[in-house]
């Protein structure tokens, strides 16, 4: 009885119900995604996109240094001003320093390689897998010989004897 119920539950139609639930929940959840809720959270979000100009590889968000504090103040001022978008604030602060402060490399020129190379590696790896599976499919047509079957028979018989005894 339990098995039958289980089999009925696991029918493909239940999977469609499941898919519907997932899509509905995802739409509901993503629709209310409002980004940073408060000016403070907007400041935090922007400060994560800028490098501290005087530290070793830290972002303005992570760094407790004086230069980072100054940048955080400037971000806070710009956010309070309400004139610029987050990206415009990042650009403005980046341009006011001689060093490159953006923590996200650009998508043009040499910097584009950092975005393109991982995708290229992924594509090549997946293509390699596809080629390998095709080759294995051809190899897979090899059938067992009589000797192979005999070995399996013997092994299965031994296992059966062990179980009986």
């Amino acid at each position, binding site marked *: 009885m339990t098995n039958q119920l289980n089999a009925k539950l696991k029918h493909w139609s239940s999977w469609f119900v499941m898919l519907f639930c997932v899509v509905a929940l995802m739409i509901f959840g993503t629709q209310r995604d409002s980004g940073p809720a408060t000016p403070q959270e907007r400041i935090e979000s922007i400060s994560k996109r800028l490098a501290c100009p005087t530290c070793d590889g830290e972002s303005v968000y992570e760094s407790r240094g004086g230069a980072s504090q100054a940048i955080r103040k400037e971000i806070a001022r710009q956010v309070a001003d309400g004139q610029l978008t987050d990206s415009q604030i990042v650009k403005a602060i980046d341009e006011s320093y001689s060093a490159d402060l953006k*923590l996200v490399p650009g998508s043009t020129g040499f910097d584009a390689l950092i975005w393109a190379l991982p995708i290229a590696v992924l594509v090549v790896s997946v293509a390699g897998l596809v080629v390998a599976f095709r080759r294995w499919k051809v190899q897979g047509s090899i059938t067992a010989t009589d000797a192979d079957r005999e070995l399996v028979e013997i092994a299965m018989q031994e296992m059966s004897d062990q179980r009986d005894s």
Partner: protein
Amino acid sequence: MLAVSINAAIGRGAILLGLLTCLSGIAITVAGIRKRDLRALRSTTRYAYVAFAAALLAFIMMERALITRDFSLKYVQQVGSRDTPALFNVTALWSALEGSILMWVLVLTGFIAAVARKFRARAGDELLAWAMVVLFAVGLFFFMLSFGPANPFAMGALGVNDGPGPNPLLQNHILVLFHPPILYIGYVGFTVPFAFAIAALITGRVGEGWLLETRRWTLYSWAFLTVGIILGSWWSYEVLGWSGVWAWDPVENASFLPWLTGTAYLHSVLVQERRGMLRVWNLSLVIATFSLTILGTFLTRSGVINSVHAFSEGSVGPWLLAFFTIIVVVAIVLIGRRGDQLRSPGAIDSPISREGAFLANNVVFSVFAFVVLLGTVFPLLVEALNDRRIVVGEPFFNRMTMPLGLTLLFLMAVAPVLPWRKASQEVLRDRLFWPAWCGVGALAVSVFVGADGWASLAAFALGGFATGAALRQIVLASRRQGWRGVVGRANGGMVVHIGVIIIAVALSASSSYTRTQEFVMKVGETVTFAGHTFTFEGLSLESDNVKTSVMAAVRIDGEQVYSPARSKYVKQGMDIGTPSVKTGFVNDLYVTLEGNVRPSDTEARIKIYVKPLILWLWIGGALMAIGTVLAAFPGKRRQPTAPVSADTPMNRPDVAEHV
């Protein structure tokens, strides 16, 4: 003055002894292999013990120098101080380059001695003998580093009677005692499978033997590396004051890279053990894992990359780069030489199978490792080729690794239910049903409690899905095998999976739903934030010879008082903020004191972070460690002739009767 010469003389003598012992170990073992001299091969165990004893002696002498404040040594002048508390005086040994290389030598020789002891009864086995040669060669390299460019016993300037002590970040939390040594055990432990892999290539015994010999060594090294990384995150959270656990810093990446390739190896090795396939791939992964430990050490110890962790820079860069190059060239040559033997006769029947899932997992882990490596070295490439300085930070890594992480969660959900060789649609439908509903349940709960953002929701849903699959495996195994249902590689592995899932969900929640607010508070003022009240009760001063700390008293929810502080380290002149954390199962309340403050101030800038599920990161890490130990226990032995796949519906009586 006599004590001064004792520390330096004995320490340096011990390093020289270790160096010569490794050299002799290589010579005697190679000679023993050539002449088939069993006595010579048996003697390698003694060489291994002597090398370990030499490293231990050098380590003890260095600790003695630090504890007795032997300022005749340059290293003690750099990291020692008369005022440093005893605990941090001991940990100062690994707070800079020379000492950390000495610790590497100690851990490495410990592994060499352990391998020699474990396999002493089989000293005549050529595979083991060559593995010992490789281990001695790696030991020789690190003894050479310690004797030459990273000499911890070099004499310092005359007349120095005190030093600055370790970097302030390395003397304000007890985790400094645990995180580096545990991480090093993981890091260095991968030398053992590497040595056996090279030995297998040299001897031509490239079958499954070397894998089985090193299975537990690899597993334990991986576990130590995992725990080391988790402890590092904890340390970062408790010490750095920005409330984060992971910043994609080059040093963090250097430890994460071998973890990624090591994890890929732990999965793909199952395919070789079961099907005799992927030999080249597994050898490559083991070699890559070890090479990445050396490359990571080069990147972070040579000064080529800036990092908040860069406590140590020195002249070891060219040595490490040369060693890395030698490893890669030797490995490629050996793999090329054994090309024919490494071809496996088998075939993977279908991508929808356990081995197919492992292959997919390996592709994702490899791309993940590539992204992390590229992001870490890209600033170097840009500077070398374009003469520009750029910083690649958290936003890049998060954007690139998030889809890979989600894919791994999906594979964690699907792979455990897949049979070997081939899975039918019916099998998938049957076995994935309840795990998939777990995923839907997790998604529904997340939406109900207010989660948003597609990436986080996907992480929670896939986390639920993968947890369902892991629990299904544990429940089925426990029904069949009783208490053994949680031990053995497959079942212990599921416990590890649950730990990983918990960490993934906690990371996703803490990075997406952290709420922050900074308040300028007057003494006695109470603010409400995220449903909690925070009362600023005043500032106080604590001062000793090492630092002067201004501490804020912040009462949370009218209960306990928490004390974030800002400390000025007297000798280094560094200003360090120390957070105070109220830990909870749902949220951590992380409080920091911002800006320059004086104890006489009547107001202070208090920053509050509400960070969800942080405690679960550490719980997940503990589960991963426990799962690894369970996985190392032998599970129920499978009959060699027992079917490797579970019944397909066609074989089940309840289905067959309808056909």
